[in-house]
């Protein structure tokens, strides 16, 4: 039992650290504090990594993976968190791609994987519907076969960043009469420029437009866009969800978040002394740090299991629940720490292109929106209640 990196792993760490230092574009997200990240900013690092061959480390080598060990991938995410890089979005790289290379045919692999790797093609996920959230299998969007095409009709929602997407992967009902709702669903790739698709952004409680409604009216899609077999989509969707949950713990990012929280708590004053010296607040930080240590070791134990050949299993539910609880707690404490300057709405100031926030400390103005936004983490990717159902069924065997 040991937590040391080997000499090779240390050399690897030095290599990626140097690469990030030398290649990460410094101007990302710094064109004025009022700006949300632009689509170009969101893809910039992805494209650089694509050229380097590092945008898809977890993929099998034959499709462009790096063949890194789980430990190397862990080091990779740690080093990126150190620099707070904007990592490739998960929808292509981590979600649809594993489905394509596992269940897709050769044409589909050749058509889609290169664009996902390079960051040229933006993907979105058409899963949830207004009436199908946690009960995803009750989805109603239909795909009806018509010659060589499917005709898709229905409405998807919570579709993250669909306003920028080139392609989407959609779960559609292809058999209304299946004995179980899970058995009549298919997994279909859709070009978002196809006529009949309307994307309507949804304003969220943090003031941003991160998710959308996607309306599909007589959307004609070639039947060759079906992944795997018709009516087997649920199997692929579940496979995808397990992939989505691994890495969802976000340990490296949260570790950096704790350091930032400590810096804030060292600057803010309480009774003339740094907030971090207040026993009450210090205790909250320590608790967070301790919980994060536990999560980190649990993730490493899971990685060690993967390294020994075990795939991501139901323990990823634990990582999801604990990881998101910690991410949320971090944003709660940050809002708490900034005090009065948590209140001003940074979007209400005129955008003069400057990076200096006109009032209050720079670390304060995103505290509230970030806290609001992070409430999503215990809801998405299978809510934390659903994760407990999974643990109950898969681990406890009830």
């Amino acid at each position, binding site marked *: *039992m*040991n*937590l*040391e*990196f*080997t000499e090779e*792993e240390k050399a690897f760490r030095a290599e990626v650290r140097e690469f990030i230092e030398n290649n990460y574009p410094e101007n990302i997200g710094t064109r004025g504090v009022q700006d949300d990240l632009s689509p170009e900013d969101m893809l910039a690092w992805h494209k650089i990594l694509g050229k380097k061959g590092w945008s898809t480390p977890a993929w099998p080598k034959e499709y462009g993976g790096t063949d890194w060990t789980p*430990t190397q991938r862990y080091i990779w995410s740690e080093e990126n968190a150190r620099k707070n890089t904007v990592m490739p979005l998960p929808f292509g790289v981590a979600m649809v791609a594993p489905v394509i290379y596992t269940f897709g045919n050769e044409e589909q692999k050749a058509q889609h994987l290169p664009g996902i790797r390079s960051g040229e093609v933006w993907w979105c996920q058409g899963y949830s519907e207004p009436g199908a959230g946690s009960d995803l299998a009750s989805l109603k969007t239909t795909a009806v076969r018509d010659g060589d095409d499917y005709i898709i009709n229905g409405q998807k929602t919570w579709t993250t960043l669909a306003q920028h997407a080139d392609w989407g992967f959609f779960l559609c009902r292809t058999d209304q009469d299946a004995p179980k709702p899970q058995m009549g669903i298919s997994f279909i790739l859709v070009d978002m420029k196809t006529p009949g698709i309307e994307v309507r952004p949804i304003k969220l409680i943090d003031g941003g437009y991160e998710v959308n409604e996607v309306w599909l009216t007589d959307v004609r899609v070639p039947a060759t866009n079906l992944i795997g077999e018709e009516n087997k989509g649920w199997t692929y969707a579940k496979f995808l969800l397990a992939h989505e949950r691994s890495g969802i713990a976000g340990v490296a990012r949260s570790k950096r978040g704790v350091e930032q929280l*400590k810096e804030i708590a*060292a600057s803010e004053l309480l009774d003339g002394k*740094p907030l*971090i*010296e207040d*026993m009450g607040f*210090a*205790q909250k*930080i*320590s*608790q967070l*740090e*301790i*919980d994060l*240590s*536990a*999560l*980190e*070791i*649990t993730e*490493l*134990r899971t990685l*060690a299991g993967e390294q020994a050949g075990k795939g991501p299993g139901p*323990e990823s539910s*634990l990582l999801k*629940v*604990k990881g998101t609880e910690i991410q949320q707690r971090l944003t709660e404490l940050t809002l708490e720490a900034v005090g009065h300057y948590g209140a001003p709405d940074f979007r209400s100031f005129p955008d003069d292109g400057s990076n200096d926030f006109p009032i209050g400390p720079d670390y304060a103005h995103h505290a509230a929106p970030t806290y609001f936004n992070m409430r999503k983490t215990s809801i998405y990717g299978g809510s934390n*209640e659903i*994760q*407990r*159902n999974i*643990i*109950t069924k898969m*681990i*406890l065997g*009830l």
Partner: protein
Amino acid sequence: MDFDFTDEQNMVRDGISRLIREQYDFDTRRKVVASESGWRPELWAQLAELGMLAAPFSEEDGGFGGATEAMIIMEEFGKGLAVEPFIPSVVCAGGALKHGGNDAQREEYIGGIISGEMIFAFAYAEPRGRYDLANLETTAKADGGDYVLNGHKAVVIGAPWATHLVVTARTSGGQTDKDGVSVFIVDKAAQGVSTRDYATVDGRRASEVYFENVKVSGDALIGDAGNGLPLIEKVVDEATAAVCAEAVGAMKVTNATTLDYSRQRKQFGTPIGSFQVLQHRMADMLMEYEQSVSMCYLATIKLDEDDATRKKNVSAAKVRIGQAGRFIGQSAIQTHGGMGMTDELAVGSYFKRLSIIEGEFGSVDHHMRRHIALTAG
């Protein structure tokens, strides 16, 4: 990075696990705890014979392992709620000797611990000292080449079974000074040592130990006079990691027992395990357990690093495991309903042991404060 155990460590686990399984079922434990002596000296002899009492010592001290072996053994102790004094004798006294003892002391006393002929208790706590290891009213006054001990040690676990004691006493300085703490080996039969023995609520035995002009020779001093605090801190950290492992073992069985009960117990015409509110509680119990395993590993792995790293990680583990133990213990009783309140089921004994572990070698609050002191700023 790996979380694998060596073949030798796996053999230790197999050996101890078989012993506990075959010879320490709950009914046996109940009888042992209720017996006059309150423990099983013959099991101790078996542990010595199997080499288990040598497990945490280095080869030069006659052993074959270290902290990981102690962790494995205590995890299995926790599964069976074994009451024998592995932590006081092997981890605490053994630890003080291996880190601070001179060659003669190591040969004599570690040899005695490993063979099982000597059984040590660790007399460090005092009625008014709480978890401050330096807060000592017990004194040791130099008298020529000898020392004379006076004082009162509180809740010395395993002392009724002990032949010897490792005792902390102040040789100089004020009551809470960091300097002036010394560590002594005391024969329990020495003149002036008296004990009041009693049972603890979690099935063990302990004593109040009184020293009245107890004369020990200079050879009884472990390490340098007045310099004992860093040694004792290290020993208590190792003991804390060991008791964390015991908690992990106890939590594992508590969870399994609760899950099993939820399958059998029927209400409203169906097993109570089919109710989502109980399922989610048991999912939480599982997550608490897994996080505790992680922290137990972390604390054990970091024991041999520098003082600050060791203290930070041991405290983090004790905080997390203290909290998890309380949650799991209380949830187990709640899920068992009225049956959880009876003395008949094992779950109550696991709950009680977990409840007392929470305060052993420092409470959640104590370790939280230590963690803050080491990490804030």
